[in-house]
């Protein structure tokens, strides 16, 4: 089309003046008579200059149309024309709902030509929940039974687009019949219609799953391809149910890749690319976490990679899908290598679309293969300053995944820069969430932590997720193990907020103000030298600002109340009480009165607002035992003893049986309970309290959310381009069989660092800058990539070992970061006649580090509640695994679990990761499935253990 003369709208009126525009360049059969009514409408609209004129014209047009369509004399032919014009009006954004019913009528009554327009209008005007759609059902049923192929096709097309869910049973048998139709186009559309039904009502098509299989085996490629849509959806939902089809999908893909399909399906000489991509996606889902199924597809994936070699967008599309599939299924090293090469091609491509996809692929694989990011670090740095924001955004996403304690400040800074430039709400919500997460996890020091969160709060404003301020406050309140650190952090927060509030008339988002007022109310006492009066004055000033909402005012009032409990008297507070006692805002008035009365009794106030007790649980004495004395006194004075409500009612009922008092009784109880609460605590106080204590169940999460303030090294170090390997901690262990008659030196070597050391001879200033950035960004990536078994590089040296004797050397290996597999490699050198050097490597799996953990059921229950990292999964049991105890015993033997107790179809077991990270397992059998539920204090452990369990169950 690009070679066509670009005829823009400005040339339109002139063109339309010609009688026969079809005679223009490239006049095809569909050229329309511009003299038609639609042509007239379009022409007059383009001739207009203002939106206002357009509105007037369309209004007039709509009035005309309305009259025409509702006139009984209007022929169907004219109606068809009206419909086209109505579609046009709707496209311009003018609602024409008066015509909807006529569109349905046209589809019902018209001949083929009119029917087609009627159906089109219906599919454009209505959505699937529209009530008028029910009127279409009859027409569809009639057309599905028609002997005319075109009518059937039209009916199927409309069904595949919109159809009322509740009417599916009316057409389902007809459509099922169509699956056996002799024409492939009908079969294909029938499959497509079933796909639509599956999407909107999966239960209704459950009984015809075997027919889907038939469609998958259809001799026509189009029908088979259509059935893949359904399979992709079904496999997305439940991959384990379709593992048996893997081989079929693989063989289809093999045929497609091998060029066995009719040449019609080629697209730019690539065989059926859409089909290939669909199949690759299905294979990815099937092979995920399933080594045996993955095994089946390695060959065909290799073949796909190999065949996709022509330099065209479509082959890149296939390559991209291949790479994703390869990284999704169980890994195979040589395929991974090829896929990594492919990603390199994308990343280094000068074409911007491919570069973007390269970054996307890197983001996808980064956790599995951090070295790949190291290889492309310079490209990534370049992309970080790319003029196209979408590239920048994807790069940030990539960096977010590789953030660690050492590079967090640089990455967060980049993210904040981007955040400040973006206006779109969705981006802001997304980015603030990510920044807050990184900051909480990796903040190097207090100052940075508070400053960065301040930036997040002021930019994220009120659109960000409410969890961010809540988590932040919880973090401050709960603190860490070190009391002194906590206080410093809080003090810093207080100081920083005070200086922010110093400036008058600065606008802050409500959420930020709420955070500030809570922190000031709770922790302002930490400032020793400051005058609390100053803080209260600043809060008071805020209360008078117009941009502060009443919710925020409630927060501020609560803060003032808390602070006033720690001061003897204050003029500002008196002024504040006076001001708001007459406020029109009833809430504020209530707070003011509460504060006034509380101020009269400082002792009570101190009890009510204890220092730094936001995390303490509030004990509620539900039995009201503190009233015992009062009750006894009353009784001794002759008061009637209290009778519970139901007792009173029974007595009343026995007295006058005719009447039923139940409704009155009910309202009486609710009055009691609500009056019991008023005045005890202000609503804001309540909400605050529940905010903090309600989270106590998530206490365990502290571990993942907490700030790591210790052990963080300096950034911007001078290590150069690439990071040095981190210091290694922990120990290493090995017992070696020693060759006899030899002088032996055992020497354990580091695993080789898989980093490409790039030597750049001369560096420009800019490049140096980039490299420095690179070194700060990618620091710490290489080291924890290959192994998480951290050990010291150790060597043992033995003197001459006597013949027939043994020497041994023992070292201890510890799993510092949970992973499923780790490799320990080293070498032995010994001297016989010549120096000999032997390499060896040992593979450890997680189960090597698991030991049983003995405990009682009560202990189990207690521990269970205190852990927050949990993972649930259902596993299929083979018939041989029969009962729960058999399955559990298998797990016990293979994984060294301690079985705590088995009751019926439920069982609990416990184990620990050496040295002492506990993991609890709760399992339950139900109809051949085993539901496993892991909980642990370590976040990665449940996942890895689940994987081990799956392996055990599969082997058994």
């Amino acid at each position, binding site marked *: 089309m690009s070679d066509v003369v670009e005829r823009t709208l400005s040339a339109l009126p002139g063109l339309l003046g010609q009688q026969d525009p079809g005679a223009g360049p490239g006049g095809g059969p569909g050229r329309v008579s511009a003299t038609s009514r639609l042509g007239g409408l379009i022409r007059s609209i383009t001739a207009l200059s203002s939106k206002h004129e357009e509105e007037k014209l369309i209004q007039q047009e709509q009035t005309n149309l309305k009259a025409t369509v509702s006139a009984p004399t209007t022929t169907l032919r004219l109606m068809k024309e009206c419909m086209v014009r109505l579609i046009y009006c709707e496209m311009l954004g003018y609602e024409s709902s008066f015509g909807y019913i006529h569109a349905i009528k046209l589809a019902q009554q018209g*001949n083929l030509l009119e029917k087609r327009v009627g159906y089109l209008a219906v599919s454009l005007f209505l959505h699937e929940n529209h009530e008028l759609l029910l009127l279409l059902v009859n027409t569809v049923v009639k057309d599905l039974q028609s002997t005319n192929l075109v009518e059937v096709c039209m009916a199927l097309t409309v069904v595949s687009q919109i159809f009322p869910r509740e009417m599916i049973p009316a057409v389902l048998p007809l459509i099922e019949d169509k699956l056996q139709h002799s024409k492939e186009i009908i079969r294909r559309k029938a499959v497509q219609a079933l796909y639509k039904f599956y999407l909107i009502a999966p239960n209704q098509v459950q009984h015809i799953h075997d027919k889907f299989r038939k469609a998958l085996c259809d001799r026509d490629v189009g029908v088979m391809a259509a059935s893949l849509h359904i399979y992709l959806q079904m496999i997305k939902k439940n991959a384990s149910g379709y593992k048996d089809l893997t081989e079929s999908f693989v063989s289809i893909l093999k045929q497609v890749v091998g060029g066995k399909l009719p040449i019609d399906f080629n697209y730019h000489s690539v065989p059926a690319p859409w089909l290939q991509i669909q199949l690759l996606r299905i294979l990815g889902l099937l092979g995920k976490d399933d080594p045996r199924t993955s095994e089946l597809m390695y060959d065909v994936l290799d073949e796909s990679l190999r065949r996709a070699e022509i330099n065209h967008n*479509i082959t890149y599309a296939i390559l991209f899908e291949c790479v994703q599939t390869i990284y999704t299924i169980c890994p195979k090293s040589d395929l991974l290598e090829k896929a990594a090469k492919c990603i390199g091609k994308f990343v280094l491509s000068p074409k911007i679309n491919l570069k973007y996809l390269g970054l996307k692929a890197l983001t996808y694989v980064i956790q599995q293969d951090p070295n790949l990011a190291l290889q492309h670090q310079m490209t990534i740095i370049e992309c970080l300053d790319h003029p196209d924001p979408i590239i920048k955004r994807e790069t940030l996403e990539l960096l977010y995944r590789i953030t660690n304690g050492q590079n967090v400040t640089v990455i967060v800074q980049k993210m904040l820069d981007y955040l400040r430039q973006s206006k779109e709400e969705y981006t802001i919500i997304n980015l603030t969430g990510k920044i807050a997460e990184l900051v909480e996890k990796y903040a190097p020091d207090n100052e940075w932590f508070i400053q960065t969160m301040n930036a997040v709060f002021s930019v994220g404003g009120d659109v960000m997720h409410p969890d961010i301020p809540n988590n932040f406050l919880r973090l401050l309140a709960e603190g860490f193990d070190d009391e002194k650190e906590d206080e410093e952090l809080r003090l810093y927060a207080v100081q920083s907020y005070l200086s922010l509030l110093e400036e008058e008339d600065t606008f802050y988002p409500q959420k930020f103000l709420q955070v500030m007022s809570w922190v000031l109310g709770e922790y302002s006492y930490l400032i020793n030298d400051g005058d609390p009066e100053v803080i209260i004055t600043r809060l008071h000033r805020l209360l008078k600002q117009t941009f502060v909402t009443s919710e925020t005012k409630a927060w501020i009032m609560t803060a003032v109340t808390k602070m006033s409990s720690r001061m003897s008297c204050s003029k500002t507070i008196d002024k504040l009480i006076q001001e708001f006692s007459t406020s029109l805002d009833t809430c504020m008035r209530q707070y003011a009165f509460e504060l006034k009365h509380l101020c009269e009794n400082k002792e009570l106030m101190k009890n009510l607002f204890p220092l730094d007790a936001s995390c303490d649980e509030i004990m509620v004495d539900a039995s009201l035992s503190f009233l015992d004395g009062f009750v006894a006194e009353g009784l001794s004075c002759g008061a009637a003893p209290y009778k519970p409500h139901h007792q009173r009612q029974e007595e009343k009922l026995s007295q006058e049986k005719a009447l039923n008092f139940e409704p009155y009784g009910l309202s009486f109880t609710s009055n009691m309970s609500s009056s019991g609460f008023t005045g005890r605590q202000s609503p804001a106080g309540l909400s605050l309290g529940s905010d903090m204590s309600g989270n106590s169940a998530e206490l365990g999460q502290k571990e993942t959310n907490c700030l790591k303030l210790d052990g963080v090294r300096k950034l911007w170090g001078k290590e150069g381009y690439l990071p040095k390997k981190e210091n290694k901690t922990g120990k290493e262990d090995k017992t070696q069989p020693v060759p006899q008659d030899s002088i032996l030196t055992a020497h354990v070597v580091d695993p080789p660092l898989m980093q490409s050391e790039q030597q750049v001879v001369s560096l420009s200033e800019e490049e140096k800058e980039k490299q420095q950035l690179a070194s700060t960004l990618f620091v710490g990536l290489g080291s924890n990539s290959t192994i998480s078994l951290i050990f010291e590089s150790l060597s043992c040296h033995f003197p001459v070992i006597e013949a027939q004797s043994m020497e041994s050397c023992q070292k201890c290996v510890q799993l510092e970061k949970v992973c499923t597999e780790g490799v320990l490699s080293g070498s032995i050198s010994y001297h016989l006649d010549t120096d000999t050097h032997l390499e060896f490597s040992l593979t450890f799996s997680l189960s090597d580090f698991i030991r049983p953990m003995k405990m009682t059921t009560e202990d189990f229950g207690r521990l269970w509640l205190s852990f927050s990292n949990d993972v649930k999964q259902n596993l299929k049991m083979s018939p041989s695994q029969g009962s729960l105890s058999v399955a559990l015993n298998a797990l016990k033997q293979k994984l060294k679990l301690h079985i705590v107790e088995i009751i019926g179809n439920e069982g609990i077991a416990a184990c620990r990761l050496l040295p002492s990270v506990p993991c609890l397992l709760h399992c339950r059998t139900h109809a051949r499935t085993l539901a496993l539920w892991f909980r642990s204090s370590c976040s990665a452990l449940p996942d890895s253990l689940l994987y081990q369990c799956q392996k055990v169950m599969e082997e058994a």
Partner: protein
Amino acid sequence: MQFMLLFSRQGKLRLQKWYVPLSDKEKKKITRELVQTVLARKPKMCSFLEWRDLKIVYKRYASLYFCCAIEDQDNELITLEIIHRYVELLDKYFGSVCELDIIFNFEKAYFILDEFLLGGEVQETSKKNVLKAIEQADLLQEVNFSFTRISQILFNPCIITGAYLFLQRSSAEQFGYFTVNIDVYVQWKFQQSGQKICW
């Protein structure tokens, strides 16, 4: 695919197809925002956009922008090719298509789109098959029309009770220059005698 929009460089909507149920208000809002965002982008920029939780894939052909919304896990490049294939189909059908063809024949453009994409999924990837389906429908309509007229002229006294058309098209590439063999079987009865005859 969630939806497809065609709009001009001036921001005028030329075609819209929604595969997810949305209210008119939302549709308008989305269209307005998207048209603005896409038009603001420079020519050398990436054809993909992140917009809300969707991916937008767009491409400009002459004065028309083709714009598709897909989900994050979908393949962007293949979506770009979907757009291209659609343009190819339009091109073949209209014979080197231009914006005017789509403005004045938007219903035809919709018919082609419905044969190619159905319910947001690629329905038929063979170009030949898509066009065959469209042409068949077009043809039948035209024949149907002329046939009614013929019957009005020739068999005025009869009531036509059934007609079967069998079409066979020669494989000439360019639409409009091919031969069609039409076998028409007509069943009618004379109004007076009620006798059925097949022709």
